[in-house]
């Protein structure tokens, strides 16, 4: 039987680390995009319950849209159930392979990101748990603050290496 191990988009990129900044690729686990219908204003029933039950983290990426993310892949039958779990209020779309998550951490993390994004990253304006759709340099991403000095950057798979290379350049002075 052929080798069917998945091929991570950032397999060729080694993590960068110093006391001031660390850049790494998060495991390619689960990313489910949940989109509410236009007739469902505000929070979707059961969304947070679903996140809690599955152990997936919730990222609010735009009005009526969320990502459910986690480090472990979800097996196919279970993923199919999850995608349909909130119907008819919201539809699920599997993006586990369509998006790649990067992890940027360290005392200089916000400074590094400010070289790419116009989002105000001061903790008073962008607290842990907040997500913004923004550009990092020329690449569209979803940026989430995980805690004071840690960020998750979710990017289209095809741009993952280009984004990594841009971020590596932005990190260079702190490595």
């Amino acid at each position, binding site marked *: *039987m*052929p*080798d*069917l*191990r*998945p*091929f*991570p*988009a950032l397999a060729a990129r080694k993590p960068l680390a110093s006391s001031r900044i660390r850049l790494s690729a998060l495991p*390619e686990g689960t990313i489910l*995009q949940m*989109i*509410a*219908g*236009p*007739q469902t204003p505000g929070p979707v029933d059961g969304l947070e319950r679903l996140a809690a039950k599955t152990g997936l983290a919730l990222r609010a990426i735009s009005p009526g849209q969320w990502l459910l993310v986690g480090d472990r892949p979800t097996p*196919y039958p279970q993923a199919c159930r999850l995608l349909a779990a909130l119907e*008819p209020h*919201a*539809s699920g*779309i*599997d*993006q*586990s*392979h*369509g*998006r790649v998550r990067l992890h940027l951490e360290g005392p200089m993390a916000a*400074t590094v990101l*400010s*070289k790419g*994004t*116009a*989002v*105000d990253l*001061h903790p008073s*304006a962008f607290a842990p748990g907040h997500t913004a759709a923004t550009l990092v*340099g*020329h*690449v569209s991403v979803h940026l989430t603050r995980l805690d004071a000095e840690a960020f998750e950057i979710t990017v*289209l*798979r*095809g*741009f993952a*290496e*280009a*984004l990594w*290379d*841009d971020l590596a*350049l*932005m990190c*260079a*002075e702190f*490595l």
Partner: protein
Amino acid sequence: MSSHRLPQGGLIDRSKPLAFTFDGKPMQGFQGDSLASALLANGRRLVGRSFKYHRPRGILTAGAAEPNALVTIGSGGRTEPNTRATMQELYAGLAARSQNRWPSLHFDIGALNGLLSPFLGAGFYYKTFMWPAAFWEKVYEPFIRKAAGLGRATHQADPDRYEKRWAHCDLLVIGAGPTGLAAALSAARAGARVIVADEQAMAGGALLSETATIAGRTAPAFARDCAAELEALPNVTLLTRTTVFGWYDGNVFGAVERVQKHLAEPAPSVPVERLWRIVAKGAILASGAEERPLVFGGNDIPGVMMAGAMRSYLNRHAVAPGRATAIFTTNDSGYALARDLEAKGLDITAIIDPRESGGADYAGKARLIRNAVVTDAHGGRSLSAIDIRTGGRTERLAVDALALSGGFSPVIHLACHRGGRPVWSGEKAAFLSPASLDGLAPAGAASGIAGLAACLADGAHKGASLAAALGFAASPIPFGPVEGDAPAAPAKVLWSIPGVRGKAFVDFQNDVHHRDLDLAVKEGYGHVELAKRYTTSGMATDQGKLSNINAIGLLAEARGVSPGEVGTTTFRPFYTPVSFGALAGAYHGEHFQPVRRSPLHGWAERHGAVFVETGLWYRSAWFPRTGEKDWRESVDREVLNVRNNAGLCDVSMLGKIEICGPDAAELLNRAYCNAFLKLPVGKARYGLMLREDGMVYDDGTTSRIEENRFFMTTTTAYAAGVMNHMEFCAQALWPELDVRLASVTDQWAQMAIAGPKSRKILQAIVDEDLGNDAFPYLAAREVSLFGGRLHGRLFRISFSGELAYELAVPAAYGDRVAEALTEAGQADGLVPYGVEALSVLRIEKGHVTHNEINGTVTPGDLGFGKMVSASKPDFIGKAMLQREGLNAPDRPRLVGVVPLDPGQSFRSGAHILAKGAAPTLENDQGYVTSSAFSPHIGSTIGLALVRHGDERHGEDVTVWNGLRGEFTAARLCAPVFFDPANEKLHA
């Protein structure tokens, strides 16, 4: 040349000597020197030649407005021409070179221009080089460019790193002089997020050159303490060596930080310059005021210097201006200089004050000449004497240094960057910033306030009130009494000086003198914008920072109106020149634009693909094999192999959109011109999307995966556009429809498996039965692969015209699946094929792409007229498609074209002429949209859009390539060269 360095004092570090060279001559300065102060300390006065007359020039200012002391520093790719010596920090090993001189700075042949100056006045070029027109580009312009000019840029690549970043704050303080420091501290102590930017290496501004004391502390010590407190506050960012160069919409400020421009060898991992975009809730413009020169003969001779600059070199850098100094001042600031010079034991020959009772408080020893002006300065490369006129008498005094002060102009450039016009104040004899500025508050000297104490108070007040307006409990900080403050009283306005004999320069950098402006007025160019262009006053790299005000004053006098009536030219970013490196940031070379990689990139690479850039994607173009001599040989082989066996092609770049929700089918039905409402689950359909104007926008297949879940594909080029279009349809046109859209382009690795043996090969990895009955043409379903180890989506669709499938698998598995298929297909002759072969296959089959869908074609033009639904109540483009012109019988329509002689060829873009017609635009009947060599037909084939094309199959025509002068006899035919009955598709 002897040392002008005073034995003590100044903010220089005498324990850190720095060796540098000027035009190769070794010199020495100290840490804390600017290149200008170090040159002056070494007794070096002549530092450059002027732009037009090549006059000897020295150092006029101590700041950003310097028009004369422009030098080239660095070497190789780091060569930096036109560096202002006044702004360049000295570093060990700095090598500076003078500019615009030949063969040497001391003996310059171009100075002959000075002798020709009676003929080189304003408008000279316009009047002289009128004709013949052809001479302008070939003779005049190269000649003028060679003779006039500044430093030369290098052609070598810049080896250094640049970057951009964003910053956000409650309050941006522009300038860290007394006003800025007071404002920043008053806001920062209350907790506001403050950014302070100052162009100098250390905060302090005018305080660094000041001898007054503040609450008993010296001014530099006060500045140091303020800066230390600001740096220690976590809510403050103090940026030195940073020039705020522009004010933009949204209260965004542009600034450039010279991170490593003061170092001989910049650290490679750190940028040399950083471009800041600062988003500020409020901003204080504490940019100070610019001292005005006075317009008398020889006012450009080295040794003539602005009074404030002389004071700065004296107090900050401990440099004596000369042995015998005169001061020509129209206001009291000249007396502060006199006081400081005398305190250091230096001789003042005279103070010349045009006011009747100027210098009433002056208690020094110098001779004070009131009601007097300097009419002319003398000396070639260094000042030797001045002529002073009092009443009707002229007196010549021997001096080697002359300080000038013609009053002060608030530095209001930034305040005018968003369209506001400066306002003339008769009381202050200056242009002030526009009255209402939302988000930017001029303060201190920048708002016309004079004196250290008043500036501190104004800064503290405005900083506190802006912070308070943002909700911080801020109050103005009292800084204590100021001793020795010398506010410059409003200057006596002195635009033109009577009795001048020599050239009286207004714009030093562009060599514009008083008479040029008079000439401009006389010849009808008295409007400030016309005078600027006629004389070039204010058009140099300094943008007239020193000269514009005098030019306006002189124009006002010549026209007999007030300066307010003359007005200013328009202020625009940048305040001072910004390097292209900083503007480009990190985005050059391989970082110029992001690369988008297909999940099958690695597979294609391993199979030897040659890649081609398609937008941001890298697509495999063809897969050469050993022994193949050119790309055509590879492509022909790939095409024939697909027709005879099977091929595998990466089509992951196609746009993919998942459309869910109970109204998904309805949305598709309205977005496509053909019907989608009743597409069965498990089926794909070709869809044609129109724009509102009835023209075809994009095409692709859309499959119904579940009752309320569709999978749309778009062309690669229009993937983002179609996604935007669909979102617009859902959100803006029909918000009542319950649909949910997501781009899934990157989720799926998608591969086309085409050719008569494709079913057999695919069956090796697909668990479900792929027999023609079980999985017919246009079937589209989720499938299980490798015995249930993986799931994907399989579509029986064909771009090549062969029995073909597209298989989509989650992207991370794409590489392995493509490899498994390549292996499984080896026995049946499966080989990879690229977009070139894909293109040949589709032209043979007559499938259109954006070559044909060029934005001007209707469905009917492409032969899709019957696809357009007649029964749907509405779809995008329906109404406009009925327009007469879109249904005209003579519209260009899709047709095939083949050369009569298979040995002959033609190219895409060539035009179609009726047989025997003359090659003129009038006879043009259409053009070849796509062409390729078809191994199946054995000749070049083409698709073309030709008038009445669909009715002219079989007609002989001429294909005309006007660019290459090629004519090919050809025949129009049906636009399908392969399997017109579609038997292969259904096989």
